[in-house]
């Protein structure tokens, strides 16, 4: 670039001296040069296949496309918040189908209940990330080159730059240049010396970290997507309901439900055992406005790893237990009345603690008892449990979630439980289609109604049902320990969590660096003051690369320090007025 015949804008001049004119950014980035008319040939109809590919690739990796895809992504994410999603709210989806029998199947075809794994949502973010990769790779290459390149040649007329100021000093030109060089260098600038038409100058640039941060940010986004996309394949989630006193051994068969990732092998399970010693819930009792509100859930467990003594641990909401490669979460709890069924001779045919599912804040709970063998007929019972029964007559309700006056009622059915055919049935539902109601509901007998420790006969002389008292030794009206609780635990194994954390940190760090580190160029040029012998006029100028609100202050500070170091005698020359950017168009 020869400076004498150069009358382009300072921006242009500053940009193309160094071979990184556009930071290899998409050509519709504001920092890059406006598309030249050469582009016309690219859009002409004579494009070959490769030409088309190249054209398509350039479109895909343009800023405009990135922007368009980002906005599209935002819009595409909306429907998933309007319609229940199978992944986060499967019951909501079932309900939606029930409420909108005509609309739902149609929406389902559009994958509206699986928005975030739908073909269209995936297409948008995959395109976005392809665009991102297509953007980041060339920029990284360019940036690596720029990191090794010298700062650009000093523009011919510094006074045309955004920020410009002058000082005069009585000093030797070489000394002044050397002082500027070392001052800028120690301030973190990359420096180079130039000489043009006898005028010596320092060219300095800083803030490469800005682009580094930007590239780290964008690359870490890709890393995050890949980790989250594939990472779940190596993990698993499993659920298990444990009643107080029960023990779980970490093997496949011990889980109530188990969802392995695609690449998960059950050999990876560490067979530790975990016993639920106690599940305790604290309820608010002082504050009348929140009476009965749970304020603490605490599952006390004993964990023992192979060949080791058990250790006492706790699991709370918000405080998962991390052990044996799994994270264990306390996601729910409730009552598990122990129910014993005997045949007419008094022989026990069934005894178990049945987890009852809470239905309301006062913990009215529903549970199912199935007795397939040992009685004259199969029986099934639908139980309603009220920890503190609050009515004299049915309909009963629970008035407090803790065990003050616990009552269990059971509706009894006899007939075919439908479990002999080997088809799996849920322990939480009872199919009464092939059964007859014999107690409760429309049946002749009333529903069974029991308090802990009580026994009642089944109708038709089938046998008896006992609601066991979990603490038989307590005084007669202290029911506080009379019914066991259960904890429902979630077990997760996710080997990629560390990676996710790492990429998150890189995203945040890269973002902060790229948004706040200014990238700027500063030039210092000296020339002899024609009028006064031995005097120098020193020019300082700065150019922002990207957002840089502090540029002016920075140039002034450089000038002040440099001039002070030279013992500048004259007061600073008048600052240049706001440049008329368009005057040279």
């Amino acid at each position, binding site marked *: 670039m020869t400076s004498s015949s150069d009358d382009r804008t300072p*921006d242009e001049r500053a940009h193309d001296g160094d071979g990184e004119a556009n930071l290899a950014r998409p050509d*519709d*980035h*504001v*920092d890059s040069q*406006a598309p030249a008319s050469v582009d016309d040939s690219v859009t002409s109809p004579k494009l070959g296949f490769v030409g088309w590919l190249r054209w398509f690739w350039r479109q895909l990796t343009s*800023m*405009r496309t*990135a*922007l368009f895809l*980002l906005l599209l992504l*935002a819009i595409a*994410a909306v429907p*998933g*918040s309007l319609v*229940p*999603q199978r*992944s*986060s*709210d499967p019951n*909501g989806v079932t309900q939606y189908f029930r409420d909108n029998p005509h609309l739902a199947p149609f929406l389902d075809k559009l994958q509206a209940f699986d*928005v*975030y794994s739908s073909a269209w949502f995936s297409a948008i973010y995959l395109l976005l990330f392809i665009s991102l990769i297509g953007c980041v790779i060339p920029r990284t290459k360019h940036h690596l080159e720029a990191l090794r390149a010298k700062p650009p040649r000093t523009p011919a007329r510094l006074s045309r730059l*955004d*920020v410009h100021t002058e000082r005069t000093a009585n000093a030797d030109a070489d000394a002044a240049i050397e002082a500027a060089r070392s001052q800028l260098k120690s301030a973190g600038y990359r420096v180079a010396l130039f000489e043009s038409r006898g005028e010596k100058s320092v060219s300095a640039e800083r803030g490469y970290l800005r682009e580094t941060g930007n590239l780290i940010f964008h690359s870490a986004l890709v890393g995050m997507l890949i980790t*989250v996309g594939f990472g779940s394949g190596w993990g698993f989630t499993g659920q298990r309901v444990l009643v107080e006193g029960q023990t779980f051994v970490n093997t496949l068969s011990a889980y109530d439900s188990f969802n392995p990732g695609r690449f998960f092998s059950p050999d990876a399970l560490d067979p530790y055992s975990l016993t639920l010693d106690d599940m305790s819930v604290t309820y*608010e009792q002082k*504050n009348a*406005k*929140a009476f009965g*509100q*749970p*304020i*603490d*859930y605490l599952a006390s467990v004993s964990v023992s790893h192979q060949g080791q003594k058990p250790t006492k641990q706790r699991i*709370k*909401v*918000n*405080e*998962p237990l991390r052990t044996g490669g799994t994270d264990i*979460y306390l*996601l729910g709890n409730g009552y598990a009345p122990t129910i014993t069924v005997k045949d007419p001779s008094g022989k026990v045919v069934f005894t178990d603690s049945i987890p009852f599912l809470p239905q309301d804040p006062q913990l009215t709970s529903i549970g199912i008892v199935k007795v397939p063998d040992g009685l004259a007929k199969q029986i099934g019972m639908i139980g309603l449990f009220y920890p503190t029964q609050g009515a004299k007559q049915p309909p009963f309700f629970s008035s407090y979630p803790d065990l003050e006056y616990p009552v269990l009622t059971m509706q009894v059915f006899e007939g075919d439980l439908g479990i002999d055919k080997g088809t799996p049935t849920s322990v939480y539902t009872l199919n009464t289609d092939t059964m007859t109601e014999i107690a409760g509901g429309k049946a002749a007998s009333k529903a069974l109604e029991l308090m802990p420790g009580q026994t009642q006969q089944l109708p038709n002389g089938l046998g008896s049902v006992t609601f066991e008292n979990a603490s038989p030794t307590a005084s007669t009206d202290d029911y506080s320990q009379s019914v066991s609780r259960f904890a429902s635990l*979630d077990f*997760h194994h996710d080997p990629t*969590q560390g990676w996710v954390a790492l990429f*998150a940190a890189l*995203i*945040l760090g890269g*973002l902060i660096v790229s*948004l706040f580190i200014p990238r700027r160029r500063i030039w210092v040029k000296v020339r002899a003051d024609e009028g006064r012998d031995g005097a120098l006029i020193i020019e300082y100028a700065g150019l*922002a690369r990207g*957002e*840089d*609100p502090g*540029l*002016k202050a920075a140039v002034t500070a450089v000038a002040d320090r440099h001039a002070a170091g030279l013992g500048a005698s004259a007061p600073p020359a008048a600052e240049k007025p*706001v*440049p008329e*950017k*368009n005057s040279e168009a």
Partner: protein
Amino acid sequence: MNFDEISVIALYSAMAVYALAFIFYAVDLARRSSAVGVVESASPVAADRAAGAQAAGVTTTLVRDTTTLDTTDAGAARYGRSPSLRIGVALTVIAWVLHLSADVLRGVAAGRVPWANMYEFAMTGTLVIVTVYLIVNIKIDLRFLGTFITGLVLILLGLASVNFYVAVTPLPPALQSIWLIIHVFVASTGTGFFALGFGLSVAQLLQARRESIAAGATSAVQRLMATLPSAERLEALAYRINIIGFILWTFTLMAGAIWAEKAWGRYWGWDTKEVWTFIIWVIYAGYIHARATRGWRGSRAAWLAIIGFSAVMFNFTIVNLFFKGLHAYSGL
């Protein structure tokens, strides 16, 4: 009287003073529109300036001009600060002190951070918005946004105290976490910055319109806008404010994910609230990109910032109240 009752009184007082501040800010705006005609005819350079600004407006998409970031700005300097503006700011500070006391007392009454239900979110969130406004004003003169800020805060506080007031209750186990403190606080701060950015972007759009019409604008709004910084400077300010908001929002999203991992066992599950936090994040990422895209810089980018903040408000109100999800808030 207990702490919560005093807190409520302090909050209502704060609202009254905010209302007064709003009036004074509004008077200032009205003054601006009548003052400008005089100034403009008195100053022969004014027309020139307007023409210059117009040219600058046309070329903003091509030139990355940083000089406009100078703290002195032609328009604002000509008008100065009217007494009503000064009173407005002083009243805002007084209201802020009352508001702060209300918030602190609520926290004392509850024995925990005062942001665990809609009422408390609104109270703390608006406090943070005003705090951000006042602090930013120390560095950058954004007093002209006073009407917008006090108006927004009044509406939110009014809605919250009338519709969402709940007595102090203990934290349910699901909210007992250090991440409640961090996540919600950072989200509120981010919201404060987005609110300012929104105000600036709206001003930028109005200004750009005024600049694109020939000098000598006549409507009250246009005359008022003449006393504010140029569209280009407003855009630069909005950008600086919004990127701070964006970083805070990025952190909010991450802190929320960490908390979700602790509470629910997964860091991301597309719960409605997560969806909207993500949408907002993507919109602002779009805004940042738009500002770096030829043809989008300027008014189009401003629209994205406006949409972004609208989504923030939507998330805070409609999504919290009417959308079903895991993020159930106590007291509602």
